[in-house]
């Protein structure tokens, strides 16, 4: 009985360590192919369009409502201390430091990350990836590297749009709806937000971009050869990316603070 449990734990641990090793090799291989010519500019632009432009709507929508709800919550909390004038500062700092990068990353995971895994998974089970290999075209260079690079480039941009829209959402609710002075909202934000906050948010966005594309392309690339396998890979990719984003967010925040 004890031996069974111990061997079960051992097997599971070995599997996890093996998977982590394979993921790391996958990432190193992607980065090394990224640096080798030919540089696939068209593929990169396509991916920037797919991950970035096509995610704009969902980013704007979540950004505005996040800002609005923060405005509402912040106003009633701050009013207890008679500090409504600090609403701008509260909304801006929450969004720039935390909510902007994290929520935009989670949205991109759901919209673009899942599609990446499904696309690559289907290419794997229909042997399109093998076909690339047989034509002496590296799938890592043609398929994976543009997705990873596009994701890393696009995430800070999406995050900055989220930040801007979110701050405006807070302004709409705080100033237009609840009567906070417009000057106080802007000036409190201006005096409290520093370059380190913006820089930290962007650093998070870049690293989340890497996590999303790395996990989602890896899961698609190593899917099992069935339609069910693609479904499972997509679910695993979204769950693992989301969890890693939150875990990495904690570690990065603790370092940046």
């Amino acid at each position, binding site marked *: 009985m004890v031996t069974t449990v111990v061997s079960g734990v051992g097997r599971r641990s070995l599997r996890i360590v093996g998977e982590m090793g394979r993921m790391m090799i996958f990432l190193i291989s992607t980065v090394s192919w990224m640096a080798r010519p030919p540089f696939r500019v068209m593929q990169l632009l396509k991916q920037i369009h797919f991950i970035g432009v096509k995610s704009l709507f969902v980013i704007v929508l979540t950004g505005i409502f996040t800002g609005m709800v923060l405005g509402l919550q912040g106003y009633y909390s701050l009013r207890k201390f008679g500090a409504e004038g600090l609403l701008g500062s509260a909304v801006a700092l929450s969004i720039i430091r935390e909510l902007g990068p994290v929520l935009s990353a989670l949205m991109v995971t759901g919209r673009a990350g899942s599609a990446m895994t499904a696309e690559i998974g*289907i290419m794997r089970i229909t042997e*399109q990836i*093998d076909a690339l290999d047989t*034509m*002496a075209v*590296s799938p890592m260079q043609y398929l994976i590297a543009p997705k990873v690079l596009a994701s890393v480039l696009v995430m800070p941009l999406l995050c900055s749009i989220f930040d801007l829209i979110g701050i405006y959402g807070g302004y709409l609710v705080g100033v237009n709806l609840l009567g906070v002075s417009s000057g106080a909202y802007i000036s409190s934000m201006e005096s409290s937000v520093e370059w380190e906050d913006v820089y930290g948010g962007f650093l998070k966005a870049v690293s989340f971009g890497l996590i999303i594309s790395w996990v989602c392309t890896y899961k698609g690339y190593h899917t099992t050869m069935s339609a069910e396998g693609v479904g499972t890979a997509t679910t695993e990719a979204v769950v693992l990316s989301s969890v890693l984003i939150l875990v990495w967010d904690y570690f990065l925040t603790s370092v940046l603070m």
Partner: protein
Amino acid sequence: MAVIRLVGVHKTLGGQEVLQGLTLDIPRGKLTTVIGKSGGGKSVLLKHVIGLLKPESGQVLVDDVDITRLGSRELNDVRKKFAMLFQGSALFDSLSVFDNVAFPLREKSTLSEAEIKDKVLGMLNEVGLSEMGHKFPSELSGGMRKRAGLARALVMGPEIMLFDEPTTGLDPMLARTIHELIVDTQKRFGFTGVMVSHEIPEVFGISDYVAMLLDGVIVAMGTPKEFQATQHPVVREFISVGRRGPKTAHEGPFRRRSEHEGR
């Protein structure tokens, strides 16, 4: 003279030893067909020939170079000699038929776009798809997809062509057309062909050599005439079942094996 040699190849997939010390010589400029049971490792064999899978032990020699020991860059150089027609054609969904056929030329040749266009249209014409260039793979029938796959494979003028069950899922008339297209193009382009199939007796009419894969090894190989005259009981049984179609109750070797496995 053998252009491809597999020597003592062992491969285990999913805990099952699919290839068990397989040895096979593929003669240059000829069409060799490997037959065998479904799920018996025929496609695995083909993927070893082009380096998509690596054996646990043994050698895969292409023009006397052991490709199992090559790095990715050297392997890509060897792969330039090859082209492969996949079971499901493996056309890129996101590209039109024209772009699919043009893909290897755009990637691996220095031809201008005008020259590529001429070559692709010529190749589409060869396989009877001259009007289909603008369509996407999802808009094509199974037979058309095979033809488009064949056009993409042939467009670079490969020295070695691999065919993974090229007629699976096609009706007998269409299967015959694809077989004729393969023989025709092999004669015209002079490539070395390796086909895996279980279309018996059709493969005897089109192949220069036939080999049978059974339990992870090649148990018989020869010209279609020699092959059909073999005294190997399982091969004889396989050929006769292929000719007659599946039987109901017969005490042949396959029957005995499956009963034994069922216990």
